[in-house]
Each structure stands twice: as C-alpha cells, then as structure tokens.
C-alpha cells in the first residue's frame, strides 16, 4: 500500500497505525506525515476510517498497533486533553458540546480564566464574543447551546478549536453543516493559521472544497491508505475514483420538471413561526423537487418543522390534503437517531405500526427492511448489534435517510439530506430523490450546498431573515442569483 510519509520536517506523524474495535479492524497499517504550514486533506468513503485516524492522532483513541510521532519522537497520548496539552487539537465530526451550557461556558470548558478563585466571566465573555465576531457570527456568548442551530453549533466548535493556539489542528468535516459564506470565513481563518505555521488536517466530502484548500490529499479506502499526493496533481474526478474505486458519472440525475398543471400536493399560506419565520407561502406540485436556500438562521429549518407540525406556528395555513408528509431533520444526533440503540429499531421507529403482527413487533419484518435499506443506501453498519452512535457520521446520515423513507411519504422534506455523506452515496441519494419525484411524489430539499440545489432541484426558493426572498428556476438558477437573494442584495427584505 501507499503511504503518506515524507520523512522531512513532519510535526505529527503516524507510522504503521492500525485500529480495531473488538474483532473488527477498521484501520490497517497507515503511515502519514503532517507538516507545519500545510493543509492536508483526508478523503474517503463513509466509514473509510478518516475520523478514526484523526482521533488516534489527537489522543482520543489509542492505536491498536503502530506509533504516533510528535516532532519525530514517539508519544503516547493518554487522552484528547493530553493531545491538546501537546498542541494537537481535534475539531470533532460530532458535536462535543453540552446542551445546557452557554456558548462562553462551552468555549472555555476545562480551561476557564479566573481572577483569584473566581471566574473572570467578563473577560471570558468578551473573548468569546471576539472569537465569534472573528467568524462573523453574531450570537451572544450567553446564548445556550440548546437554542442554537446545527450550523451555529459548528461555528462555536470552530471558535473553540481555533482558540487553542494549536500546532496541529484537525477538522473533521467542519463544513458539512456550513453554508458557502461560513465556509469562506472558515477558509480565511485556515489560510491565516497556515501562515502562522500550523499543521492542518481537513476532512470533507465536498471535493471542490478539498481542491480549493488542500496542499496535499490523502485518500483512504476501507481503512487502507490508498494514496497521498500533492493536491495539484489530482482532479476531482480522480479523487472520486480513488475513493470509490470506480469512475463516477452523472452525479446529478437529469431533470424532469413537472407539468405546469400538475396537481398541488402542498400549499403553504402566510405561515409564521414566532420570532423566526414570517409570512411564508409557497406550493409544491406532484413530481416537483423544490429547493430551499439561505444562510444560517434564515429560518428554513423552522419553516419546515412548522409545516411538519413539530413546532408551534402562528397564523397562516398548511394544506396537504390527505397526503402523507415526512420530515428529515438536519440534527441527526439530537433529533434523528437513538444513539444507544442498534440500527434496526432506529430504522423502524417512525413506522413501527407497519411492522407489527397483531400487537407484536415482527423482528423478521424489521430485519428484512434493514436488509433492503442496507442495499438501497449502501449502509455500512458492521454488526447489526452495533449501537448507531458508533457508526461513522455518513452512515448515520444514510440510516436517518432510510428511516424517513420508510414512511413512504407523498411529500418529503429533507433538511440537509447529504450532510457528511460521501460522493458515491450522494449520487445514490440524488437519484433516489429524482425517482421519488418521477413517481409522482413531491420533494422539498433544504440544503446549504448550492451545487446540490442547482443540480437537483426544479425550482429553488431563497430565504432571508425568516422570509422567502425570491424564487429561481431554469436559467436564472445559479449561485450568483442565490447569493444575491440570500444576502439581501436583491428581493424584498
């Protein structure tokens, strides 16, 4: 196998690292060097071992075999905190925040500033506010984590990680929940860190981002290091092929817009959510894929949750006739999956009624459904008894997608459906959505990935500050127009 060593001037390296969870080995003999002032991208399919590798390099997991070297010397990092003490910081793929704490408390947790025996809250608050401001993120540092959207939580995590003055900063899919603008802000920050000589690791499934920011790229497949190359030598298609092991064509399925007189499945009129969404109205037709774009806090999630009846709404009306509606949440950990449970009960949780025989749950029927979902969405769940919390992020997302599709809805609202999903599976999901639409269902896609909206949707609504600011379709459906509406350069504010 290839390895990612270069010998010279590595800050942090791994040599021959393997990792097993129980009897299953998920990383095999990986060797890699991270250099100061360089962005090293890790790519690979869901479950390839990217997160596991970064956890080993930062001390959260001990390797089953092999060594971690810091400045060429072997180190045994006892814990993540130990890693941080050595200047190695990991920004987790999954949030590492306590919901009841405030932003300031979270950012300083474990390393509070004090004056005498007391917390220096004023200074910490000011500092937290500054960190957030650096990220152009205007949330008060006294807001509780519980009240934040996933993207805001991610920004808090970024603020926290970058405050560590790390020598090595590893970011595990930091952009999966960020919009274009926030991603740009993050990349600005990355560039600055790079100049300061920090060694950076960047994991993402968005290959355009990888191309944009990485100096070197390492591809993992099934726990093996397939290749480490300078970014300049690799095109996106090549990366995709290395990852998946086969060439990828047609990421997006051909568009088949519905007839103009197709039946209306869902009509939303003058809907409001107190303080978040105002006077939202739109309609969805049979066979239509309708996109929703917008920046953080634009209110897309709130609007969709209100439509799905998960949130109190204020005025307005939602007419869906007798059509079944399903909603895929953007927050899979807090609202989507029971992390302590295996895949089977998670898959069937919202449709349990159709898995009962008499009063009893039919486990064989559930198992059959799981088999089908595994095939349909390329789920890699290892053992069936494995708790969902131990699945790789992308596989959790795929399971959640499968769970929602179990309801066989007529109208399906998917909020950030491909969060953390690898490119091969993305393709599968896009085609799946297109087939749904072709079969006469209506699909609403809320996404922060503009290419996804543009490539997949027949029509896109752009939200800004709780209002629908504009509608785009056909020729005018492009990134510039979306950004114009989203930032208020165009359309009613």
């Amino acid at each position, binding site marked *: 196998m290839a390895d990612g060593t270069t010998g010279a001037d590595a800050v942090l390296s791994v040599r021959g690292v393997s990792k097993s969870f*129980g009897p299953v080995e998920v990383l095999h003999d990986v060797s890699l060097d991270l250099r100061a002032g360089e962005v090293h991208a890790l790519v690979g399919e869901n479950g390839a071992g990217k997160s596991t590798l970064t956890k080993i390099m930062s001390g959260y997991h001990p390797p089953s075999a092999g060594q971690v070297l810091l400045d060429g010397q072997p180190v045994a990092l006892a814990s993540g905190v130990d890693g941080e003490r050595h200047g190695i910081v990991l920004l987790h793929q999954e949030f590492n925040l306590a919901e009841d704490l405030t932003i300031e408390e979270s950012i300083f947790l474990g390393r509070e500033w004090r004056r005498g025996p007391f917390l220096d809250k004023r200074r910490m608050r000011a500092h937290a506010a500054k960190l957030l401001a650096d990220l152009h993120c205007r949330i008060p540092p006294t807001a509780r984590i519980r009240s934040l959207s996933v993207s805001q939580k991610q920004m808090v995590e970024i603020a926290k990680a970058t405050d560590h003055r790390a020598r090595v900063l590893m970011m595990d899919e930091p952009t999966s929940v960020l919009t274009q603008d926030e991603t740009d802000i993050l990349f600005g920050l990355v560039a600055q860190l790079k100049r300061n000589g920090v060694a950076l690791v960047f994991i993402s499934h968005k290959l355009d981002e990888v191309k944009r920011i990485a100096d070197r790229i390492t591809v993992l497949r099934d726990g093996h290091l397939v290749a480490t190359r300078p970014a300049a030598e690799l095109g996106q298609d090549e990366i995709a092929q290395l990852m998946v092991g086969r060439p990828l064509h047609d990421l997006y399925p051909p568009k088949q817009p519905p007839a103009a007189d197709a039946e209306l499945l869902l009509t939303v009129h003058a809907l409001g959510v107190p303080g978040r969404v105002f006077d939202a109205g739109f309609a969805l037709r049979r066979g239509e894929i309708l996109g929703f774009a917008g920046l953080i806090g634009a209110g897309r999630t709130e609007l969709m949750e209100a439509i799905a009846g998960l949130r109190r709404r204020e005025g307005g009306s939602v007419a869906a006739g007798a059509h079944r509606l399903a909603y895929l949440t953007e927050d899979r950990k*807090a609202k989507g999956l*029971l992390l*302590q449970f295996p895949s089977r009960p998670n898959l069937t949780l919202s449709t349990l009624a159709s898995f009962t025989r008499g009063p009893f749950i039919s486990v064989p029927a559930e198992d059959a459904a799981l088999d089908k979902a595994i095939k349909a969405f390329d789920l890699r769940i290892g053992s069936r008894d494995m*708790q969902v919390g131990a699945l790789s992020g992308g596989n959790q997302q795929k399971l959640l997608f499968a769970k929602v599709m179990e309801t066989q809805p007529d109208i399906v609202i998917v909020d950030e459906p491909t969060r953390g999903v690898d490119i091969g599976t993305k393709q599968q999901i896009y085609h799946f959505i297109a087939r749904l639409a072709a079969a006469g269902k209506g699909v609403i896609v809320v996404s922060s990935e503009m290419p996804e909206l543009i490539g997949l949707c027949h029509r896109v609504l752009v939200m800004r500050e709780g209002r629908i600011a504009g509608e785009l379709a056909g020729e005018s459906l492009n990134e510039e127009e979306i950004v114009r509406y989203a930032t208020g350069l165009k359309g009613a504010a």
Partner: protein
Amino acid sequence: MSDAATTLGQTPPRPLLQRVDLRAAGPFLALVALAILGTIINSDFLEAGNLTNVVTRSAFIGMIAVGGTFVITAGGNDLSVGSMAAIVSGIMIVLMNWLAQEIGPTPWVVVIVIFAGLALGGLAGLLNGLVITLGKMEPFIVTLGFMGIYRSVLTYIANGGTLTLSGTMRTLYRPVFYDGALGIPYPVWVLAFVVALGAVVLYTTRFGRYCFAIGSNEEVARYSGIALNRVKTWTYILQGACVGVACDIYVPRLGSASSTSGLGWELEAITAVIVGGTALKGGYGRIGGSIVGALILTVIGNIMNLSSDVSVYLNGAVQGAIIIAAVFLQRGVGFKR
C-alpha cells in the same frame, strides 16, 4: 461490534452484546450470592416453606416494580405507588363490605372487587399521567403530591383508623392469598403472570419500544412521530394497574387497610427496579431484573430475620450495606471499565 460511546463514539470498544448480557445477568448473580449467604447463615433458608414465603412476600413489590419498569424506562418516576396501594385497598374494602350487605356475601363480590381494584389502580395512574403530561410537570413533584393526597384521603375515609373486611368476606377472600394451585400459592402465580405479561409488552410491542425510545431521547421520539403524552400516560396507567393487582392479593392477606398500608413501597419499588438494572434516567429497562430486585430486597429482610448475630438496632445498616454490595457485585460483573 462495540460499545458506543454514547455521545462521541470515542471510548474504546467493548463487546456490546456481551455487556448487555452481563448487565442483565448481574442481578441474578447477586441474588444467587445472597441465597448462598442465607444458606450459610441458616440452613433453614432453603426450606421449601421459607422460599415460598420469600417469593410470595415479594409479590407486592415485584408487581409494582413491573409497572415501575415501564415508567422509569420511559424516563418518568412514580412516588405515589405506596399511597395508591393504601387508597385502592381501602376503597376495595369499603366496596366489598358494602356489596356484601347489598347483594349478600357471595364469591361474586370477590370477583367484582378484584376487577374494581385493577380499575381503581388504573384510574389513579391515569390521573398521575394526565397531570404530568398535560401540566408539563416534573413527575417527581406530581407523584410526590399525589403520594400525600392518596394517603391522606385514605386516612380520612378510615377516620384515622383501620378499614377492615367484614368476617364473612374475609373468609371468602382469604384463599386468594393463602391458597394455591399445584403447590404454588396464588400470589406467586399472579406475580408470574404479571411478569410474563410485562415482559411481553415491554419487549415485543410497539408501546414497549416507544417506552425505550422516549426514555432514551424524547426529542428523537417526538420527531419520529410518537405520541409522547399518550405513551407516557399509559406507562402511569400500567403502573397503577400493577398496583391494583398487588392490592388484589394484598387485601386478602390481612383483610385491612390503614394509613400505614403500603408505607414506603415507592422507595422499595424504585430500588427493586434500579437494583434490577433499569437505568434511573430512562432508556434501558429490564422486567426480569426488577423482579429479581424485589426478590433481593425480600431476601435481605428474610436473612436478617433468620440470623441472630446482629444487634437488631443494626438491621438497617446491614440491609443498606448488602444493597450496596449487591449492586456493586452486579456492576462489577457487568460494567468493567
């Protein structure tokens, strides 16, 4: 194949299946250890008579703990069960005496009152459940309030004294506790039935699955379209019904109810449930464990009565120490870290 780190998926792996099995087996092992201890202290412990006594005696707390397993698994708590047992028993006695006068002391009265007990318990549970879910209040507070209310109302009905079954009804109803079939007392049969039913409901029905889901993560359950309030209310109804059945066999034992009936049962039932391996914070429940927990508590008391080595004043200390030790033993087995 691993323990998953609940939050981050980062803790080192531990074989999941194995752990779950051990976790479920822990209470049984603790019970066996206690039984061995009992036998060492006094060989009479293993006498058929004594074992029957112990199991029969565990029936009340055992049944209540079955209901408690549902409530706690779904993330709730019911402190009112002891008082509920008192008031249900009291009303059953009043009803029985009244019916005996009205329609004569026939076995039918017993049958009617047995069903009345079940219904009364269910009704009290419904009340708990509705106040908790519709009032959006902490179950601890609501059931604490009802704990006071139920007991107080019984004291009022009994005028501070004791409600007693009339002589003939006593004789008619008595066999329900004291007799048996196939050499096994009826209370044990009833207990077995309640446990079996409880296990079937918790492990094989939709409702049971929902209890786990709600206790594990209420938001996820809500987003999955589960009717939270309905499921939660049903757990309290089940809990109440279990109390009702416990009363059905409690009343014939002594034929009376007073303000001290069922005193402290809430703590015993919760303890049985937790000793049995159910997680106090919800999301993980074991019916079998709860019964074993109830047996453990009874056996501890039994052993205290069978031995004479300890000053009676230290009874409580020994019991406390044994509970801690039993749980430590089972945790030691189940949760090696």
